[in-house]
């Protein structure tokens, strides 16, 4: 802002709050346009011009059973991992909220640290833990609990474990931040009024933490839709993700218009799910409730 005549400038700004806010958000807006709106529109344009206007790539997608089925597998794996991440993340946040500050900080650091470890390293670590001669099978055999190694890897179980591990921070942090804004005295009050622990949880603590659940679950679900490294490494024959097929079209087959159409469809599916979510769970209202 220019500062020529403080009082008049102050008045102008006061008179035009719209402009002032616009200027404040404009850097973010420019970044959004350059980094998101522009590339996405290029993708949309590419998907319908090859080189003349055509919808053939979209028609092909919906008439070939492979793509519909892989899209369905993608959604299924995403829903499943969102649920498992939610359960684990919630428990983690719940415990952290009630832990002593020292212990809490150690755990928070540990979760943050996991962000800094490469995705590939984390996936390979899971391979070492879950494989036929891996840590879990060795332990279970040693204690005589199993005769044959369990099949924990290269199937849906492996994928869910690997993805959940990666998603936990994304879901635990929003829930944790909401819980930190929650007054624990409310729980005491409920118990004081005769509620059991179970009733206290379901009728006081849980409803109050809903905004965090809403934000975290949506974030994780959308991330999961575009995931494929973990399913590729920890999954089996059937854990094929749509982004894997997009990558093949881009890199190996050079069919960029079709790859663009597939990306556009994935984007639309994501948006539809977002709007349904927003309609019934009110994502905006939920985010409004987030307190840090």
């Amino acid at each position: 802002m220019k500062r020529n005549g403080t009082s008049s400038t102050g008045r102008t700004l006061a008179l035009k709050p719209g402009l002032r806010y616009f200027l404040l958000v404009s850097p973010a807006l420019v970044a959004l346009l350059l980094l998101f709106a522009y590339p996405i529109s290029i993708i949309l344009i590419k998907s319908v011009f090859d080189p003349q206007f055509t919808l053939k790539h979209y028609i092909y997608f919906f008439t070939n059973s492979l793509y519909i089925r892989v899209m369905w597998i993608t959604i299924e794996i995403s829903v499943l991992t969102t649920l498992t991440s939610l359960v684990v993340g919630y428990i983690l946040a719940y415990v952290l909220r009630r832990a002593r500050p020292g212990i809490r900080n150690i755990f928070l650091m540990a979760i943050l640290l996991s962000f800094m470890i490469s995705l590939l390293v984390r996936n390979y670590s899971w391979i070492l833990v879950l494989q036929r001669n891996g840590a879990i099978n060795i332990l279970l055999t040693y204690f005589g609990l199993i005769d044959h190694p369990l099949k924990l890897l290269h199937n849906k179980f492996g994928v869910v474990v690997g993805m959940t591990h990666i998603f936990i921070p994304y879901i635990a942090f929003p829930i944790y931040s909401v819980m930190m804004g929650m007054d624990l005295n409310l729980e005491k009050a409920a118990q004081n009024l005769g509620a059991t622990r179970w009733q206290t949880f379901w009728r006081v603590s849980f409803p109050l933490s809903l905004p965090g659940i809403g934000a975290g679950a949506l974030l994780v679900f959308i991330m999961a839709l575009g995931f494929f490294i973990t399913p590729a490494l920890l999954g089996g024959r059937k854990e094929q993700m749509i982004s894997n097929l997009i990558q093949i079209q881009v890199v190996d087959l050079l069919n960029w218009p079709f790859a663009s159409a597939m990306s556009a469809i994935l984007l639309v599916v994501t948006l539809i799910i977002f709007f349904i979510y927003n309609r019934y769970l009110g994502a905006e209202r939920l985010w409004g409730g987030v307190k840090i």
Partner: protein
Amino acid sequence: MDKKKGMTRREFLVTTGAATGAALVTASIGPFVHTTMAKGKTLRVCSYGGSYQESQRKAFFQPFADKFGVKIIEASGGDIARVKAQVDSKTYEWDVIDLETRHVARGELENLLEPIDTSVVDLSKIDKKAIRKCAVGNIFWTTSLAYNKKSLGGGKAAGSWADFWNVKKFPGPRALQDQAPFNLEFALIADGVPMEKLYPLDVDRAFKKLDQIKNNITVWWKNGAQQIQLLTSGEAAYGSAWNGRVNVAQKKGVPLKIVWQGGCLDLDWWCVPKGNPNKDLAMKFINFACSAKRQGEQMQKYIAYGPTNLDAFKYITPERAKELPSYPENLKKQFAMDADYWGPKLAPLTERWKTWMIS
């Protein structure tokens, strides 16, 4: 698939870089860049990194830089999508690029590569299998059946693809790569098709044969690091694998063994992106890198792939030669991958493969 590199995988680089603007990603993140000498002209070379690119650095890049006073800038992790981005935008990041066959075939189909200038590149001693319109073969490498002796528990080892399919006689978990090329060929060989009559592939017959073993394949591997990890850890007793990787593991003391019988011989190629202004120097480099002496040094000292220059074996000891895919005794047990068959067929067969995988 890069069969030579260590843990970092170019496929994952590309993937995390996301679908859009592969070239942009390279420009912004900056690929691994290694400079050899600084004087006069510059040549930018892209290869596949790891121990493979290191072997090229010692055998080609440094000697070329010294001899011709050229500064060589290295990059790694190329594919035809990035070449297309460069050719379309006419902004060239690479003058010479090491590409796999499927990328070369696709590049030729889409007119993305310069024809080889035969007045500069001497092809007289190059194996005919390693000569294409827009590319010269740089190494022979093999994908074949491999196993870990330790995982067999003293049992007899499978010695062919037919044995690999015989899960009763040769028990043990198995691994194959999640892709149509190679696997359809292996299935047909297991079903008794003679290697010289594989192409054009009887696709229906191949999938029918694959149906027999579908549920016995424990892992469908995706990258080079994974195939060796699976065999080393015993997660798979048998699997398809790349000979260079197996050789590296053997040198580290892992009891892996490669079965040359029924192996698929493939190549990596030197190419030049279409319209590159530095084309002349690029061709000169390709000629240099394809000389018998240079290739001989590379294969003898640095990496276990097969030279494409037939005279290169003069510079390789007999013991070392036996480990290489294009050693005559090994060569006659294998078939050569037909890139021109796969070029136009890759898209429909990849779709059929993936459909087969999920059903």
